[in-house]
């Protein structure tokens, strides 16, 4: 058991930056983040970045990073800072637990990317049409996908 841990990086926020893109890698956005990093701490990971620092500085770095590939970069808050002994596998040993939610959502996040890419294009499917779609049930396209999966 680890002893009492004083608050680490008090007064800061940590945000995850996830990248799901065929043309941008975590290394690309890390380089981009370092261009304007200032006083923030940036940790490069296999899925993107963790950015820790004062909230306004973190937001500035993230808005700069987002410009690279706006529809394929996703950001969310993180409670623990990077390297926190309660969560970091360097202290706990073995694989790090967690990330189940991220793993699940990353499985279909490309559908959201498509939604973001098409959000400013003329509406092919409007939100009100979606109500009709709900009543229609399974779409032909989805049915074809399911058949292809089973084949």
């Amino acid at each position: 058991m680890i002893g009492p841990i004083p608050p680490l990086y008090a007064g800061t926020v940590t945000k995850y930056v996830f990248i799901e893109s065929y043309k941008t890698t975590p290394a690309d956005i890390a380089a981009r983040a370092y261009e304007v990093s200032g006083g923030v701490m940036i940790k490069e990971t296999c899925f993107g970045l963790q950015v820790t620092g004062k909230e306004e500085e973190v937001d500035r770095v993230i808005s700069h990073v987002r410009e690279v590939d706006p529809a394929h970069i996703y950001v969310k808050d993180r409670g623990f800072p990077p390297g926190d002994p309660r969560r970091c596998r360097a202290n706990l040993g073995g694989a790090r637990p967690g990330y189940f939610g991220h793993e699940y959502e990353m499985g279909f996040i490309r559908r959201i990317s498509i939604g973001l890419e098409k959000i400013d294009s003329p509406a092919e499917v409007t939100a009100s049409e979606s109500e009709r779609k709900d009543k229609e049930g399974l779409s032909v396209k989805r049915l074809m996908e399911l058949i292809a999966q089973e084949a």
Partner: protein
Amino acid sequence: MAEVFIYPATSLILSDLVARFGHKPLGTALSVRERIQTAGLDSPPLQMTPDDAKKGLRWAAVEVPSGVRGRMSLFGPLIDRAEAAIIVRNPEFAFGCMGCARTDELVEFLIRQKGVPTLELDYPSDEEEGIIFVRKVKEFLTGPGGLS
């Protein structure tokens, strides 16, 4: 800028979309961060303390299991702050033990009881639904009848 409670409270997609459209997402990370940065937290590697089950009494009755009350000490303050909410119906990854299930039910109940503007959605199962999902969220957050 409104504070929007998201459910599942750890959702990357909802958190990103809410922030992207100019509002503040209220997710579990905010509550966890508050605990991490408060001196006196002394039960690593857990972020919950025995006091949390007592704090949870504000949102759940005393006969409710302590697991639910402990979880409510994370979600409750966020629900109190929420000016709106986005809920994904039956998210698969939120499936868990009975404590998780009952907390999820209680969270949804409290949001509905609070009467804040709420958007309910399903995760998209194809690209077309992805477009609809994003448009609905945008409409809710920025549209004429939305929050802005």
